[in-house]
């Protein structure tokens, strides 16, 4: 469908423009005062924004209640849902580009998809557990020992394993400071954990070419949080069951990067916590059974 392809390219352009904005130090763009609900850390000098999820975890670990990052995540989720995942997140943008490798979106089997999608909620719970316990013991002798024992997993237990941090922070900083090996003999001097991070990044990128939005679907704790809070957002997708031919069409499902069976939704509004509000299903529907509404 030409309309869907044109819409996908339009969305890529929006994501690219946003990426330029949040890395636009050289363009003289001022730094944003409020953190953004995207998988972003903002450690590179070019960055013009902080990530709300990272900010939230660091604040909790330091024993400070994260009013501001939490407010940003809750408000955006309540009004727009996880729209920042679909339209703004730089790591989502990279995965979207890679999804063009395949002519059509590939699907995992429904049981595999249902099992894997639980991973992001488990990751969210584990990450919050470590952050909250770090914060609870902050300032005590045990807290200091605990913090020390966590190594680089304190204060943000998620960042060391996040491929977005490896791609947008570790690699640019390593290149900038000339920390990457330039000869075969130097390979042995590379920190084993950096190899591990590069392996996760490479695996994610390869899998994203075959399963669209692989990381977002199964491993992103921010997506899990925003999806849960935003499943009943003001901005939503409405389905008219009288116009929808369901199984006979299924184009909404075919064009959904998150593998959501929009056509089987029992409610008049789509309430899937996986929906990233990319609106590709709305564009793909030839029966005009889907529309964006409040």
């Amino acid at each position: 469908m030409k309309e869907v392809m044109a819409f996908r390219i339009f969305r890529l352009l929006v994501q690219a423009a946003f990426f330029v904005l949040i890395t636009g130090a050289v363009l003289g763009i001022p730094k944003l005062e409020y953190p953004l609900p995207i998988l972003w850390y903002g450690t590179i000098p070019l960055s013009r924004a902080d990530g709300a999820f990272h900010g939230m975890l660091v604040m909790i670990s330091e024993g400070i209640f994260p009013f501001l990052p939490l407010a940003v995540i809750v408000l955006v989720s309540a009004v727009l849902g996880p729209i920042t995942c679909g339209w703004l997140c730089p790591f989502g943008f990279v995965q979207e580009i890679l999804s063009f490798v395949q002519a059509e979106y590939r699907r995992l089997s429904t049981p595999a998809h249902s099992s894997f999608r639980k991973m992001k909620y488990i990751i969210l719970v584990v990450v919050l557990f470590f952050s909250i316990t770090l914060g609870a013991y902050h300032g005590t002798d045990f807290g200091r020992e605990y913090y020390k024992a966590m190594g680089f997993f304190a204060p943000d237990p998620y960042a060391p394993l996040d491929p977005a941090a490896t791609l947008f922070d570790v690699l640019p900083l390593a290149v900038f400071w000339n920390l990457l090996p330039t000869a075969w003999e130097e390979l042995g001097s590379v920190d084993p954990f950096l190899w591990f991070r590069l392996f996760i990044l490479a695996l994610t990128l390869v899998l994203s070419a075959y399963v669209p939005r692989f990381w977002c679907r199964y491993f992103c704790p921010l997506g899990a949080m925003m999806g849960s809070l935003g499943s009943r957002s003001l901005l939503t997708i409405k389905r008219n069951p009288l116009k929808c031919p369901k199984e006979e069409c299924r184009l909404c499902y075919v064009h959904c990067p998150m593998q959501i069976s929009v056509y089987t939704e029992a409610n008049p509004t789509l309430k899937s916590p996986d929906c990233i509000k990319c609106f590709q299903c709305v564009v793909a529907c030839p029966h005009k059974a889907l529309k964006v509404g409040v």
Partner: protein
Amino acid sequence: MPSSRITTLLLLLIGVGLLLVAISLNQSEIVEELASKGLKSVIAGIKLP
């Protein structure tokens, strides 16, 4: 009013409440200050000079 709308309104109220407290505590500055503390986790695997 449907229950989903009540949930959304509750979330909005919570969000606005959190934002007001955050502004009164000037947390935007704290977030920026703590970003340097989080650097250790973000760049795990490399040692900056």
